[in-house]
């Protein structure tokens, strides 16, 4: 039954080993990025979740079949398309985050220019009423 599951998914042993290795390396890279403070924990959790998904599928390929059954996917392709759409959504979310950050970045740069001008005016003794 379990072997049949693996066949249905179309995973051979080499595929599973490959997937396991990729997931483990990915997990290691993510943890290392967090350790070096290059990646926030908030985003790291997401990627660790994805790597964990890869690990589970590598060890139990029938998980894909089980997952497809639970969500009523008739064809496994639907499963892959769903994953792809999820990644697409993720990229969209990130570009929204980047847009917001660059807007804040612009506002801060402008504020720095305005405040440092005001500071140098104050140092020169020109005090202005500035709301």
């Amino acid at each position: 039954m379990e072997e049949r599951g693996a066949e249905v998914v179309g995973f051979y042993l080499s595929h599973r080993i490959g997937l396991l290795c990729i997931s483990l390396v990915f997990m290691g890279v993510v943890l290392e990025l967090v350790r070096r403070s290059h990646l926030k924990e908030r985003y790291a959790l997401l990627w660790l979740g994805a790597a964990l998904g890869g690990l589970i599928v590598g060890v139990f390929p029938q998980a894909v079949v089980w997952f497809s059954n639970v969500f009523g996917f008739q064809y496994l392709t639907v499963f892959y398309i769903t994953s792809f759409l999820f990644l697409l959504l993720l990229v969209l979310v990130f570009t929204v985050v980047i847009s917001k950050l660059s807007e804040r970045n612009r506002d801060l740069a402008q504020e720095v220019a305005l405040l440092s001008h005001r500071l140098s005016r104050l140092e020169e003794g020109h005090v202005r009423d500035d709301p």
Partner: protein
Amino acid sequence: MARTLVIIPAYNEEATIVSVIENIHASVPDCDIVVVDDGSRDDTASLVCQHGGAELLSLPFNLGIGGGMQTGYKYALRNGYDVAIQCDADGQHPAEEIPRLVARIEDGSADVVIGSRYVADSDYHPSFLRRVGKSILSRWIDLFIGGGITDTTSGFRAMNRQAITIVARNYPEDYPEPEVLVILHKHGLKVIEIPVQMHPRQGGVTSIRPHGAAYYMIKVGLAIVIDIFRRYAPVGVKQ
């Protein structure tokens, strides 16, 4: 006279910035000038400092023309100016025409006055492609704001207090001039244009590269449609 501020955004304009400041002081003695140095790598900032005829706002890094202009408008807003004029640092915009722009603001004929290169008695002759591009853009903008403006890309403009308040809050990032018109229109402001004779560029390089023209058209064209539907935070302005 109303408290008037001339905003000069400058990015690597060491060749012309001082003469531009001097021309403005000569033509409009009782206005203040602020130069927004948009992270120049040349001597623009130190020349302005040495000259002393203008206030200097130094952005910590390059924001692009939109971010630079907006800094100037924020300065105008916070320091209580009644009229703000934006003027290029390359000497193309004629300082001697500034009083005419300001006069139309002061007599209440409009909230924003654009110095236009196209109206009858100007002799600005852009290249054929540029003319076609700008004409398409102007038609497109006409469609949304009901027309009347031929030179939608002119960066030689005067704004009253109400307009300053709006643009200090919302300013598009790149190629901002046409979009600003749409934003002002959405806030119900009146924009007019008067003919001016532009000078040829005295130094520096244009920010719009020829191969960027198609991108320019598409970006601005789309942005204008989006601006129509965009939600703006309410701006508290006294009429």
